């Protein structure tokens, strides 16, 4: 089972529908026991980091996700779900991330407008087994971007300078954009991931 971690925030329906559109069932799961049974996890998120972090931790989902990470269960993070991989965000200093990847999330500076809303072109800069042919146009909605400490950046987008668009490592991938809202390119990325973790 692919489990979409359901902490009540944001684009859950869209993500689920996108998986269905590429022939893979993904279930919305909040129960921690069921999360431990999943063969892959999707961590969605949208809006304010603080709100996402608080809701996520209110349902006490942290241990199930960090445990999955330890056990090598594949994880895909989307937008604020990806930001939650990091230690924290400037958007909400008191709200912790999961610390799955080293670094923090910071407000984008020197940009024309905030938030960045719309389509932008992603350059894949690193290699990852789940990222074949992932360069292309994706839909972004964000004011904050991850600033990883280690070399976990796999793709960037140019918005007043290079911003982190894709991060990852062994068994983990995070995207700042919304693949579930990025038309054919996004669906291809979701399908490639679903097939790789199947």
């Amino acid at each position, binding site marked *: 089972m692919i489990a979409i971690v359901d902490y009540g925030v*944001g*684009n*859950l*329906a*869209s993500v689920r*529908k*996108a998986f269905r*559109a590429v022939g893979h069932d993904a279930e919305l799961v909040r129960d921690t026991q069921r999360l431990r049974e999943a063969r892959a996890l999707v961590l969605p998120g*949208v*809006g*304010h980091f603080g*709100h996402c972090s608080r809701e996520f931790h209110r349902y006490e989902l942290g241990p199930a996700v960090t445990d999955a990470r330890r056990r090598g269960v594949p994880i895909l993070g989307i937008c604020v779900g990806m930001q939650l991989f990091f230690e924290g965000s400037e958007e909400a200093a008191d709200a912790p991330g999961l610390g799955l990847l080293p670094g923090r999330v910071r407000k984008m500076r020197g*940009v*024309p*407008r*905030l*938030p*960045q*809303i*719309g*389509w*932008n*072109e992603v350059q894949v800069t690193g290699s990852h087994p789940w990222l074949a042919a992932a360069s292309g*146009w994706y*839909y*972004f*909605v*964000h004011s904050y971007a991850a600033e990883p400490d280690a070399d976990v950046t796999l793709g960037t987008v*140019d*918005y*007043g300078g290079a911003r982190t668009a894709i991060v990852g490592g062994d068994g983990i991938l995070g995207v700042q954009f*919304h693949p*579930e*809202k*990025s*038309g*054919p*390119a*996004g*669906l291809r990325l979701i399908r490639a991931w679903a097939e790789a973790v199947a």
Partner: protein
Amino acid sequence: MTVAKRVIACLDIRAGKVVKSVRFVDTKDIGDAIEFARRYNDEGVDELLFLDINASHERRRTAVEFASRVADELFIPFTVGGGIASAEVAGEILRTGADKVAVNSGAVRDPSLITAIAERYGSQACVLSIDGKRSNGMFEVVVDGGRVATGRDAVAWAKEAVGRGAGEVLVNSIDRDGTKLGFDLEMTSAIADAVDVPVIASGGASSSDDFVTLFHETAADAGLAASIFHYRELTIPDVKSAIAAAGIRVRPSEAFVGGGRGRSPLR
């Protein structure tokens, strides 16, 4: 570099049917909304806006089920507007798979609506839609589908709404709506220069050149049109080709790149 300029198709709907609106009077059915949405999606539209044009003055809630059907099969961003008067209704729509809600009359009556939506769902989910027209030397906000003048200054209202948490502003010119005279560059600029969030221009577009002019002469991030796309007077790929040819960054639609035109418009 910056984000691509967006081309947005608007569908005025009533019970799932697309209705055309010229100066917000006289509507007639011209087809099933989902069919139109599908076509625009196939043509590579960047975003869709669904307005339930009767919702506001009949005080009924926007079609949540309709939004859910759209989200079942289209995987591009879409906004739903019309008659949204509470954060609860906004939440219902967003949970179906809509990305944003557009608030208009409801926010003029109760500006705390913007704050409530932004706090719960994020600023990115809250679009302030302004219907404005020239009046007494200013751009005046009108509500209830363009029928009721408020005496409020549209630029001041946009600034206030952004301060309250609106993440985007849709500027619809009542003077231009349905006239095919081109976008209202003056009103769009007045608002785009006053706020720091993305601005969508709406009303009056009839040609690809209107989009090019909009992006050359104003700071708008997106241009929106309805009837010209409905009647195929203009297609999304036509508009995008023209924008790209003018040296403005735009997302090439895949159908468009792969559609035998020979080259990506960006290279």
